[in-house]
């Protein structure tokens, strides 16, 4: 029984492996990004081309697009590992499943959360957001996308290997994303009217801390249940 390996080191190895695995299969990387850009582009067609109109909705639009794009990437978090038996091998290696849950969430955030935040800059400018509220948007997106990854990983672990798991994970997870959407979108729209949205950002940070502490437990028992 070897316990010299420190948890941080194992976590790093797990994350590195997941990122490397998805990086090799780079098709999966593109889906969240393209989805995010496409959804954001749809809004000007639906609403109106003038930036004046778009600006008033910009915060909400970007947040909805980001939220949907991230929930699209939840499906194949565990799918390939589950079908190839790699998830089973990881469980049987005796590593604590909390680390596996956390690592999957971090990998998902790095692979779909980060690109979305980076892409939000040009898209937000195209929708006429000024620089101050852009910074608020990016900050709220960072906090919110991390929370989405964490909750999404738990829900993804619950529905891995099921029929139409892709749709199931989105339908199950969206109700839990509503508070994040509320505070994220309100933070951005408030900042556009000159207010400093501290309260919303504090709530988002609070939600993130809550999910970081609780969701790995849910992911761990979800993995063990699904493998049973």
């Amino acid at each position: 029984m070897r316990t010299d390996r420190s948890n941080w080191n194992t976590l790093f190895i797990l994350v590195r492996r997941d990122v490397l695995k998805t990086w090799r299969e780079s098709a999966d990387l593109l889906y969240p990004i393209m989805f995010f850009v496409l959804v954001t582009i749809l809004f000007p067609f639906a609403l109106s081309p003038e930036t004046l109109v778009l600006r008033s909705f910009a915060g909400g639009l970007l947040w909805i697009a980001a939220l949907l794009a991230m929930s699209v990437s939840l499906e194949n978090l565990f799918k390939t590992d589950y079908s190839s038996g790699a998830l089973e091998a990881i469980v049987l290696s005796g590593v604590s499943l909390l680390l596996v849950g956390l690592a999957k969430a971090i990998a998902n955030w790095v692979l779909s959360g980060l690109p979305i935040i980076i892409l939000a800059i040009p898209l937000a400018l195209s929708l006429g957001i000024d620089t101050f509220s852009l910074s608020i948007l990016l900050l709220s997106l960072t906090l919110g996308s991390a929370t989405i990854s964490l909750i999404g990983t738990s829900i993804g672990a619950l529905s891995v290997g099921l029929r139409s798991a892709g749709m199931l994970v989105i339908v199950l997870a969206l109700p839990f994303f509503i508070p994040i959407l509320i505070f994220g979108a309100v933070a951005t729209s408030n900042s556009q009217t000159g207010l400093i949205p501290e309260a919303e950002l504090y709530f988002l940070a609070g939600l993130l801390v809550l999910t970081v502490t609780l969701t790995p437990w849910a992911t761990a028992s979800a993995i063990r249940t699904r493998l049973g």
Partner: protein
Amino acid sequence: MRNSLEVKSLSVERSNRGIIKDLSLSLTEGHLVHLKGANGSGKTTLLRALAGLIGPAQGGIFWNEKNISESLFSQSRLNYVSHSLGLADELTTFENLSFLRSISRKALNKTVEASLETMNLKSLKDCRVAILSAGQKQRASLAQLLMFSCPLWLLDEPFNSLDAESCNVIESLIDDHVSNGGIAIVASHQKFQSSTVQQVVELQ
């Protein structure tokens, strides 16, 4: 201290159907069990229950008199190689095995290179698992047996898609393991050529 594996009137359910009914087994060190039975008779279910992946409906499994479901889900005691081989297709053989070795809590045995050597997969070290043949994948997955030293081996169809020469390698590995005090439960359709089977368990 002699390791012992007790299965007491175990029954396991899979999607609401009783697969294993009231099975009892008692194994000590140096025991090789050949698990036989038609498809769907519960061989894989029994191995997964012994590995602690599935909870029993009734009865219990005891490792050194400790019920495995109560004891912390510690897998340091067993090596389980299932027919879903546990290797990610996108990574190379070496990356897969060294990943499993680095995160594992089990006592280490051979290095990744040495295990691949014995499985004569040295040449395929750096190519992706996706392009390996079924036999090569099977051997790469069985290399895990060498990387860790665990008293209990649970092997699910280790011989299928293996050529005669590799079968001998695997059988000799199992013999060595059993001879120096390990327990091995092997589910397989093919008969054992060389190794001495202490017990044959037939599942309906």
